[in-house]
């Protein structure tokens, strides 16, 4: 595969690295908590790059002090959706920022087929491009 030599979806931070261990994830979580971010866990089985809204796994976690609490929820989600993409996101509520400041994938399916590029010829020589996940043909829940 030329466009995706590692055969993995690369979204968010650390996605070109090998999967983070739980200790490394904890360290990232703790970094965010120390900065006052609120972590949340989200999952999906449709990792299309334009699919920005994944499903929430529980509420965003405000007022936490220690990474163990967030990791507990991550492990819960992994147990519930072992073959889904799961990401952790940190929300910074500072006035003027008020948005997601960290986001990385913490769980992915064993086999990631990636996306196909579909070309459509229109109006003479113009081209239109569409990316489509190979898994997206199957119904939700049965994709990976």
């Amino acid at each position: 595969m030329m466009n995706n030599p590692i055969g993995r979806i690369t979204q968010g931070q650390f996605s070109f690295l090998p999967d983070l261990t739980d200790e490394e994830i904890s360290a990232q979580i703790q970094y965010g908590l120390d900065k006052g971010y609120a972590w949340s866990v989200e999952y999906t089985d449709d990792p299309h790059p334009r699919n920005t809204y994944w499903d929430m796994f529980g509420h965003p976690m405000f007022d936490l002090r220690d990474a163990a609490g967030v990791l507990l929820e991550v492990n819960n989600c992994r147990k519930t959706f072992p073959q889904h993409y799961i990401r952790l996101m940190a929300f910074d509520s500072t006035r003027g920022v008020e948005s997601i400041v960290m986001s990385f994938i913490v769980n992915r399916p064993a086999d990631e087929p990636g996306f196909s590029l579909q070309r459509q010829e229109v109006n003479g020589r113009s081209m239109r491009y569409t990316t489509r996940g190979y898994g997206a043909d199957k119904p939700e829940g049965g994709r990976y």
Partner: protein
Amino acid sequence: MSENVDLQALLQESNVTSVLEQLDRELIGLTPVKRRIREIAAFLLVTKARQQLGLEADPPSLHMCFTGNPGTGKTTVAMRMAEILHRLGYVRKGHVIAVTRDDLVGQYIGHTAPKTKEILKKAMGGVLFIDEAYYLYRPENERDYGQEAIEILLQVMENQRDDLVVILAGYADRMKTFFGSNPGMASRIAHNLDFPDYAPQELLQIAEMMLERQHYQLSPDAKVALQEYIEKRLKQPNFANARSIRNALDRARLRHANRLFEQAEQGQQLTADDFREIGEADLRASRVFDQDDEAGAPS
């Protein structure tokens, strides 16, 4: 590996002595509690030293139960305990999350688990202080959701012992019934601390310390009045040890302020001492003195 462990250095490094000293200084009475805390601190320190020597042992279970009447300092000691555990490295953050039944138990099916888990997540790395823990278990209602909260608690207390410490608190006799019907809980509690009631003399000391902290002082007559007040108040119902004393002092401050206000209205010059000193009249005006040993709601 060196065969000598410098316990002194460990002690210094953890800085735990200063917390223990602060505990001694700021908490009047409570000798058995202080002794027990000292024992726990020593045990944890020695466990740490043993680990450095490579003497493996199971990590100590740290969940505790504080029993005692209201106002005997359970919450205050829990805060100090969190600090001690933090300094010794047994909890990572050392914060205290104080909750009661309402914070853990939901109102309908499926509400309890997320609620309890949310609190547990907040308490991770610190101490979860459950006040009046026996309310979690309501034997008269078999469909009560409290049982669900207890089960989640037990699971976390067992599996994530390094992540948080749970402290249960409440009256001694009701706590006993609670443990009687929840043997799983009882077996996971390693330390039971019993908080005795304060003696009248200790209560007076506490009162003086509270006032000192707020930069008030008692006139000699007021001190006698307060002593009498404490003795009378002790015999009345709903006496909540240090909390009752604090409330009494708050009311005395109210009367003190009112007295100064009236004096100023009458055109009297007030000195700095007037503002500082709580007089006999401020205390004697309490309704406790009218009631002369008959039972009734105190003011």
